[in-house]
């Protein structure tokens, strides 16, 4: 048998990502593997909060994806890997099996990968918070989640045991893809050049449309054709790790070396040392070459052995953020909006609102770049006052939006379209845990 490139595609790049490009990828991608990466820093903590309230701890969109996308992929022999298990991979696997059965898809072997959840073991682990240098218990708020970022090994094992679907929790994003490639090509866990190549493929695909023209258009400098119809990416990965990043024929967007360069550096600190649980990848000497229309070849990535410690994300309940907005337009709008902001600030002081921090922005003037807004920025015709405050109590946070809303009656003339919100804060801190203290395990279901 001659070694051939394997085809691996993206089915989702965040929890609420679009469904229809995933269906298209499953149907026309001719894929060996389809990966759904659905956890952001905060998503997992929120999932844990839902679980603590007896709700589902897995991804809220799991059922939708197992209805619309997964059966299409399974019918074509494509295997599914995802972190949609979030705070409850076993619960996710149960639900996935049930949803597949409901649609008459039977006999599918589903593995749940657990062991990243450290919440039950926190007392024994004695973790130190990276940001503060202090022990975890010194954090002011209530800890709601603690998950180790685990690597590809458990997923590789599940695929080796015949899983057609693998659902994990806080598996590191690129590891979802790396696991498929390790299984497909039989790469050893310490085959560093290939592990580096696999991490690069995962890193490039895990943000989905960010490598097919999403978040790129800046006309007239950067023009993206048919942006609304852009699709998810896929990679053809050769046994030596050389990969071609591409997209499906007929989808919008584009794949170019410039886009791949932007994405290879995206949210990486040092391009020569991208730290993941599976290895420290070095993208700095990668080759990124055009290989035809919407095809970019990536090679030359290397890696060094994995770090001795795994990152832990810790979610902490830290009170509430209250927010209010109201618009002003026409001549004098800037002065009226500034006056309105000052009224809100004074009212919150008069009411002794116990706020840790208050921010007053003028959207349309300087709300996005704040103090960096240049002097040459033109004056707007209309703008929106935004006031946001952080508080320990919901009562104090609620006062912020209330005081903005009351500008309808008590503020300067012409304030319109007031809106207010209050939301709980789940702040995320990081820590490190020795990797040998995190043990994963697999459990199995069949649809």
């Amino acid at each position, binding site marked *: 048998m001659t070694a051939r490139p394997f085809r691996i595609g993206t089915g989702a790049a965040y929890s609420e990502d679009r469904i229809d490009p995933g269906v298209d990828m499953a149907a026309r991608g001719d894929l060996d593997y389809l990966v759904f990466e659905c956890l952001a820093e905060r998503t997992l903590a929120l999932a844990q909060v839902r679980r603590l309230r007896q709700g589902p701890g897995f991804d809220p969109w799991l059922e939708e994806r197992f209805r619309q996308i997964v059966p299409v992929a399974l019918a074509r022999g494509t295997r599914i890997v995802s972190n949609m298990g979030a705070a409850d991979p076993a619960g996710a696997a149960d639900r996935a099996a049930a949803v597949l059965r409901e649609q008459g898809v039977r006999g599918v072997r589903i593995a749940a990968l657990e062991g990243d959840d450290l919440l039950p073991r926190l007392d024994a682990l004695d973790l130190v918070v990276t940001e503060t240098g202090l022990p975890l218990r010194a954090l002011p708020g209530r800890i709601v989640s603690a998950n180790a970022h685990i690597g590809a090994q458990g997923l590789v094992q599940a695929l080796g045991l015949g899983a057609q679907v693998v659902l994990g929790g806080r598996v590191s994003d690129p590891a979802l893809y790396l696991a498929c490639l390790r299984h497909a090509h039989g790469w050893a866990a310490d085959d560093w050049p290939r592990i580096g190549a696999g991490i690069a493929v995962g890193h490039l695909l895990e943000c989905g449309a960010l490598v097919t023209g999403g978040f790129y258009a800046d006309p007239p400098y950067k023009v993206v054709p048919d942006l609304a119809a852009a699709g998810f990416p896929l990679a053809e990965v050769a046994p030596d790790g050389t990969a071609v990043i591409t997209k499906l024929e007929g989808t919008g967007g584009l794949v170019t070396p*410039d886009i791949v360069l932007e994405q290879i*550096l995206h949210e990486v600190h040092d391009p020569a040392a991208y730290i993941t649980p599976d290895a420290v990848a070095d993208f700095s000497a990668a080759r990124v070459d055009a290989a035809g229309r919407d095809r970019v070849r990536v090679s030359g990535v290397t890696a060094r052995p994995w770090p001795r410690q795994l990152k832990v994300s810790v979610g902490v309940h830290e009170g509430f953020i209250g927010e209010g907005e109201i618009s002003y337009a026409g001549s004098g709008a800037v002065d009226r909006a500034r006056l309105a902001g000052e009224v809100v600030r004074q009212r919150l002081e008069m009411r002794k609102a116990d706020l840790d921090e208050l921010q007053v922005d003028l959207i349309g003037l300087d709300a996005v770049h704040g103090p960096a807004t240049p002097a040459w920025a033109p004056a707007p015709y209309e703008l929106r006052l935004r006031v946001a405050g952080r508080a320990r109590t919901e009562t104090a946070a609620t006062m912020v939006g209330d005081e903005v809303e009351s500008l309808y009656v008590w503020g300067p003339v012409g304030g319109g379209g007031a809106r207010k919100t209050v939301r709980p804060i789940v702040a995320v801190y990081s820590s490190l845990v020795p990797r040998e203290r995190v043990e994963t395990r697999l459990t199995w279901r069949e649809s």
Partner: protein
Amino acid sequence: MATVRLREIAHARSGDKGRDAMVSIIPWERRHYALLARVLTPERIKAHCGGLVRGDVVRYDAPALGAFNVLLKDALGGGVTRTLMLDIHGKALSCLLLDMTIELPEAP
């Protein structure tokens, strides 16, 4: 000599990493790499951000890729999950840096 905005000769993408923001800066043409390596100093980038970046600015150079990655420490008002800033992820920071002015020795 010609004065241009960075946007004329480079493209960029930004995002978050905890409390820090990252901005990649990639010249369209390799011939501008050495110039940008000279003038895009961390001090100058920090000054351009006018107080938005509370921590240090670190620039990682990847000459083989023809790209820079700029780390803006503590630029997100305490991090994605607790910041009061409107752009919680720092997604719009690439456009801030692309407005820096660059002195070119010749016409672009």
